[in-house]
């Protein structure tokens, strides 16, 4: 099947922040130095070439951009200063937008106004949801401190907050999973052989471990520190997710610390530390990975940092200062940051990468095994080069 070239592709990527795509002359140096490439999964040369040529459609069948962890080794060795690592980053943005059926990811990547507008809009809605009911039914809020706490439930009933959590969880899951479904259809469709259903199950454990550990990262040179921070981030997410979604009634009590406090402290520290680490890196632009940060690269750690900070302040106001008014205000601010952040980042932006990476490995391995199986039953009939049917090293 021949692929049609689309000359507008490079320009569209440039709109998403790609610096320059003309310098690469396809020598392949980058692929040779990349620690993460393996047989059957060679990048970034091929992806850059496809980008130059305008093979946008064929690119959506590739998993390789997700296998790159932006270590910058390739960029350091490129003889043409073509910045391959940055091009891979741009391709990840492109893929995120290509998987997304709502078109919002594209809007967020190409327009600051859109991204900020949606964040502010959502923040206003959140504030409204907290404030308007109290304006309509005044007198419910308890402004006096309790003994060893603040009556948070008088301001935000756990049941309502929990309902809000569930609605958001449903919405985010739906958006993210529908995009992942589209991603899988593209990647697996490229095999052009039937996929045995059992493979989806047998490969699932890779998905879980990669999602939790992002361990391919550890394969990069000198990237251990980076990987540890990522790991912290992931564990912080996971703990906070459990606390907020499953154990909200224990997390949000009106009095005293309880068993959720310690894991909560750990998660908060992890998120604060990780976001500060990324922000500092972006600020100093020391590492290759940070040289070409776009607005959205900044936004995510900044929001995460603000989320953690407001969470901590709220906690201090509530338990250590037992100051109800401060607690309520900080609660609203905290929610007005965290909700828009999650709504924008999880399905459409940076955060979704954390999900796409393990899924890319998952789909790639299903595809490889399906090809291997097909080759066994009809050897030679596929014209598939053996490399393509290699499974990824895990």
């Amino acid at each position, binding site marked *: 099947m021949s*692929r*049609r*070239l689309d000359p507008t592709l490079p320009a569209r990527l440039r709109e998403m922040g790609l610096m320059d795509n003309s*310098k690469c*002359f396809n020598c392949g140096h980058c692929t040779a130095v990349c620690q993460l490439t393996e047989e059957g999964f060679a990048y970034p040369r*091929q992806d850059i070439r496809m980008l130059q*040529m*305008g*093979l946008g459609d064929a690119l959506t069948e590739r998993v390789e951009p997700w296998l790159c962890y932006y270590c910058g080794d390739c960029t350091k060795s490129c003889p043409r200063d073509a910045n391959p690592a940055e091009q891979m980053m741009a391709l990840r943005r492109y893929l995120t937008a290509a998987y997304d059926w709502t078109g919002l990811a594209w809007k967020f990547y190409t327009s600051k106004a859109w991204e900020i507008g949606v964040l502010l809009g959502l923040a206003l809605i959140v504030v409204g949801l907290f404030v308007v009911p109290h304006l309509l039914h005044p007198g419910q809020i308890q402004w006096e401190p309790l003994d060893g706490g603040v009556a948070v439930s008088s301001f935000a009933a756990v049941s309502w907050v929990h309902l809000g959590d569930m609605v958001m969880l449903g919405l985010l899951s739906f958006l993210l999973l529908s995009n992942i479904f589209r991603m899988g259809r593209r990647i697996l469709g490229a095999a052009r052989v039937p996929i045995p259903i059992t493979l989806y199950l047998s490969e699932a454990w890779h998905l879980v471990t990669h999602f939790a550990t992002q361990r391919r990262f550890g394969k990069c040179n000198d990237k251990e520190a980076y990987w540890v921070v990522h790991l912290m981030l992931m564990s912080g997410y996971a703990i906070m997710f459990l606390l907020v979604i499953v154990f909200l009634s224990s997390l949000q009590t009106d009095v005293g610390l309880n068993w959720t406090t310690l894991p909560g402290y750990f998660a908060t520290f992890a998120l604060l530390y990780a976001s500060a680490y990324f922000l500092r890196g972006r600020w100093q632009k020391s590492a290759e990975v940070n040289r070409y940060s776009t607005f959205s690269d900044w936004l995510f750690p900044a929001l995460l940092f603000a989320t953690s900070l407001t969470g901590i302040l709220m906690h201090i106001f509530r338990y250590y200062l037992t100051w109800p008014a401060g607690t309520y205000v900080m609660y609203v601010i905290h929610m007005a940051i965290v909700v828009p952040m999650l709504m924008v980042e999880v399905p459409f932006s940076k955060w979704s990468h954390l999900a796409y990476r393990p899924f890319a490995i998952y789909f790639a391995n299903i595809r490889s095994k399906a090809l291997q199986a097909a080759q066994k039953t009809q050897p030679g009939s596929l014209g598939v080069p053996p490399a393509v049917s290699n499974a990824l090293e895990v």
Partner: protein
Amino acid sequence: MNPQRIGVYVCWCGSNIAKIVDVEKVARVMARIPGVEVSREYKYMCSDPGQELIMKDIKELGLDRVVVASCSPRMHEPTFRKTLKLAGLNPYMLEMANIREHVSWVHENQELATAKAINLTRAAVHRVMVHAPLVQHEVPVNRATMVLGGGITGMTAALRIAGQGRKVYLVERSDELGGRAIGVGRAGPHMNSVAALLDNLTTRVNDSAYIDVLTGTVVGEVSGFVGNFLVRLANGTRELTVGAIVVATGTQPFDAKKLHRSGYGRFPNVVTSTQFEEMAASGRFTTESGKAPRRVAIIHCVGSRDSETHSYCSRTCCMDALRFSNILRDALPDAAIYQAYSDMRAFGRDAEEFYARTAERDVTFLLFDKLLPPTVSEAPAGDPYPLLVTMDEIATGIAIEVPADLVVLMVAREACSDAKDVAKLVSISVDKDGFFIEKHPKLDPAATTTDGIYIAGSCQGPKDIPDCMSQAGATAARVLAAITMGKVKVPATTATVNEDLCVGCQTCISVCPYGAVIYLDKHRVSRVEEVICKGCGTCAAACPAGTISPRHFTDNQVLQQLEGLLAAEEG
């Protein structure tokens, strides 16, 4: 015919020969052959003392013929002929035996090598016994030159020759000087104006008092030989007498209709590089529908580097394609420009930089394997662009299709369709592609194997303007060197017809590669023009009556040599 007085000189060539061949033994054996007056070996025969040794013997011992057993005659035959001449002997009374290239350099066994050296030297001794003195003639040279072809090369060569005050007839078939460069807008990589260059050349040619410009003129017949050619023009009774001829007839573009896959002649939006130049000159780039093109695909190597058409590279089209991309980018800032290529030939000064700069102007390069060139076809109904270029893009390994509304074919430059006729006219050779062959690709690239006929420019193989200019200059220098002497030596080792025995079958005329045999209608016999004859012997071998004898290679001489070779070992 005896008594003969032969001197034999066996050379050591330092240790080159002596370390494998027992040179003393060779000399000893030769001394015993009747007629050999003296037989010596010496360290370096070609050195001054070596030559003096021979001259001294000739004078003191009254030698009348000499054998030198040493290196290849290609190397030192002229040297020793001169030695003989200085000593008062006819230079053709020399015979050489090659015991270096043919013996010491190719054998390891000393005994066998010595035996072979003895045989070869004995053959030379037997042969020299029947050598006859030959005379080398000199003929006067006409100092005018004809330049055939009025392109950039022809004009440049004419100007250089005229610059030395020599007469030039510049014969151009078409009505205009300039050749293929007419219509080429600018020349890459520096984007110099070709029109200005042509204007400069034509003005100077037309203004030159020494150049006779004959446009619209075709040569009918060329006869004569170096220094004395008679050129009959086809369009009239005019005849030119010249001493040298420069062939600069250039190339013609490949007809892309011959390649179905190119789409040329089938789809109106497929144009050749020449047509593109016309578009560029008019400044209006349009598709068939009159609109400005939005997707342009430039395809390299159409008719070049391809087993179906020409296997050679046309050398200028890669740079032309880059130039076209720049022209297109200037005119159409938003159009997509593709270049389907199979190797980028960016040689020469500033060419690679030109390539890099072009690549930065949003030009997409697509790589194909030259064995699988792109195909141009009609796009399916409903497509926004009328054409599809399909190819296997080998840098990605992906089969692609490029929608296009203008396809530019970089067509090959091939030898003119009448190149063989021109070659025959002046008795030179063409290669398998129809390009004229030079005398030696490195040592003598401007001359041909026919004395007095020179070649220059793209008729020898595709060239860009700087290369055409350089060769035109080299050829002019070669011509000037030949005509300035006022006379040329013609070789003595030519064929002769025994006209008493010739039956007039003219077989010799049909086989002679140099056109050296003429037929005398009146006497109904053939005659060899000695000034043209190269002494190759082809006619002598072909003559059914056995009446042709090449001087210095007579039957008798060859038989004697064989006899010497096969004679019984004399110790």
